[in-house]
């Protein structure tokens, strides 16, 4: 069934929009913003705010209706299919179905100086009321921190005989994160050890389909909690154990 944005009535198609145009705020600026939205296919455009935020720039807040609709059933993609378990269930599952402690090595790689993502997943304390992987009795987690060269991450993973490698990429500009992520996979392939590890990436610009495209086993986007990552690692490890 097709759906449209919901304002206060089914199928009214109301959307909230804000943007800046590089024009001075003149008497006609309101119409420029309005007609721009109309060109995008919106109608019933109500410009709520027009403000010069610098001599050459005008900021808009507007509401408008769209006729565009979408059928959710037609949206297909590579979504991570994993049963989310809780902390206790995951530990039991690893003990029973994997049969050994999961060794996990994680880092923010190359130029990325931000540990917030890898810390949220790995640190004892965890994130959003969710313990990090370090807390799991059945997981040995090693958090290498930020700005870790791919070579060093791989070396540690081999030394620790890791089951899984976790990579975080938080900050990006001009798609540097893609280069960094590609570099890691190429390195693993060149060393002939790609298949030895479950390789997972997380970050605000990451989703599962994109991660798969780059050669990772899974990708996690923003607001991912440690149990989601741990559930995937446990189930994937078990799957590899008993193919």
């Amino acid at each position, binding site marked *: 069934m097709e759906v449209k944005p919901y304002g206060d009535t089914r199928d009214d198609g109301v959307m909230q929009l*804000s943007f800046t145009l590089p024009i001075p705020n003149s008497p006609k600026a309101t119409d420029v913003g309005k007609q721009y939205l109309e060109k995008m296919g919106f109608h019933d455009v109500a410009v709520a705010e027009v403000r010069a*935020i610098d001599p050459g720039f005008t900021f808009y807040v507007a509401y408008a209706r769209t006729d565009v609709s979408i059928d959710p059933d037609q949206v297909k993609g590579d979504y991570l299919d994993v049963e989310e378990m809780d902390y206790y269930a995951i530990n039991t599952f690893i003990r029973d179905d994997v049969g050994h402690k999961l060794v996990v090595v994680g880092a923010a790689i190359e130029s990325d100086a931000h540990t917030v993502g890898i810390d949220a997943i790995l640190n004892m304390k965890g994130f959003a009321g969710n313990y990090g992987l370090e807390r799991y009795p059945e997981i040995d987690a090693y958090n290498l921190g930020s700005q870790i060269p791919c070579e060093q991450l791989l070396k540690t993973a081999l030394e620790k005989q890791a089951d899984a490698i976790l990579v975080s990429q938080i900050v990006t500009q*001009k798609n540097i994160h893609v280069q960094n992520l590609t570099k890691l996979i190429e390195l693993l392939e060149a060393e002939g050890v790609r298949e030895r590890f479950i390789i997972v990436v997380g970050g*605000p610009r990451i989703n599962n389909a994109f991660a798969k495209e780059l050669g990772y086993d899974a990708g996690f986007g923003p607001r991912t909690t440690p149990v989601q990552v741990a559930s995937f690692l446990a189930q994937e490890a078990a799957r590899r154990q008993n193919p």
Partner: protein
Amino acid sequence: MELSLRLDQTLVDRARSAAESIADDVWRHIEAHTTDSVERTALRLLGVVGVNEIDVPLVNVVVEQGRDSLASGIIAPFVAVMMDSGMSAQQVAEGIATGTLTLAPVAAERREGVESHAAEIAAGGVARIDAARRRREELVATLSDPVKPWLYVIVATGNIHEDVAQAKAAARAGADVVAVIRTTAQSLLDYVPYGLTTEGFGGTYATQENFRYMRDGLDEVGEELGRYIRLCNYASGLCMPEIAAMGSLERLDMMLNDSMYGIIFRNINMERTFVDQYLARMLNARAGIIINTGEDNYLTTADAFEKGYTVVSSDFINEEFAERAGLEQWQMGLGHAFEIDPSIPDQVVYQIADALLVRQLFPEASPKYMPPTKYMPGDIFMGHIVDAMFNFVGVFTGQETQLLGMLTEALHTPLLQDRYLSVKNAKYVFESCRSLRDEVEIRPGGIIERRANELLGKAAEQLEHVRDVGLFRALEMGEFADVSRDPGGGRGFDGVVKRAEDYFNPFYAALREGRMSGPPVGPTPAERAASRQGGR
């Protein structure tokens, strides 16, 4: 009636005295060593600029040449060549780079003459820093100095030309301080790039040319607005004192310049950092630059509620190191942050306790209050409200510099409109709550006072523990930010050199001699500027 807490003074005294001993201990190390970056800084202050044909800065080339005798300092052999050749510092550096000149150890009988000549040239270098400081004082006096808390915003486009455009827009919207975020990983470069730059990752290279270009841009817009707009950058990483030197010469007004940040968050060797931070801070002291310390970062890795006291401990340590480098209290922008989880009941009450504690422990300093980052949601509307509470706590507790939070903190480097909305948020909250702190008192024995004393008690305990084991060992044990570092490891360790008996660097003395004192004082802003009406 100032808003104030009844603090246990014995705890304050214990904390200060422990911090003093901690700094004394590290002091012995600082005085016994030099580093690659310290020597390169001295060359920069003599006037050496530019790069060789493969873009290696000349100061790096010269220090590499003099590596064998670095324990005695680069300046004596370098100045000896200047005297022998009759050339300028720049010409000598170029000569060394092309191979027409070489450095040689200075014979004992020449030593005195070379050193006294070097001291004269050094005084000239320091005079250039003084001129920049005088210029700031003139500008503040003729324009005006904004009311506090100063609104501090960040630009981070990677392209210095875009940065200038965005910085001007931010100033027009009401920002008082503009910081140019550095490109990711510049802190790990063991050289300072050269020239105007248009590409960076998550920020823009700190180069002397970029500094100058941005300075001109802000002076221009400051003139237009009738307010002096301050410029901030980062004297941190492997080139900490060199960047401080560049900032001193190009009239930056603030510098991120922490004594431990690089160790903890960039894995830069601790011996290197402690030596580097000393000269960097001496330069900032001389230049009248306000330093900002990075305690807020502790709370992005450790929990703000449980580990809030580590911020206080570190502020005490930073204060001690700053004092030893000659920074005056007003130049100490001690860091702290609004990072307690918003889902904790009474979060704002605890934040008031934490912020007021820092304000009261360092009453003459210029604390810099950092916004929420760790718990900023993708829901920008909610994020904007959390930022408003942060602004409220900032103005209510009397902070000096408020680094504005962005509603899109969790998403991307700020868009033009994000920064505008953020400034508007702060202006509204500051102006609407301006007098509140004069109207209320903190309830004796209430949540706020109890939390503040608890934090202070834990900080005193932690500082005494750090004093007992020594700061190097404490950093090894992960005392701050839950991060542990190896004293013999980390980046830049190979650039730490034990000083020889005859070590010579004229700048340590020159920077102390005859320095100016006190903050620049200007008129209060004109009504138009004070109301900070941006746009129409």
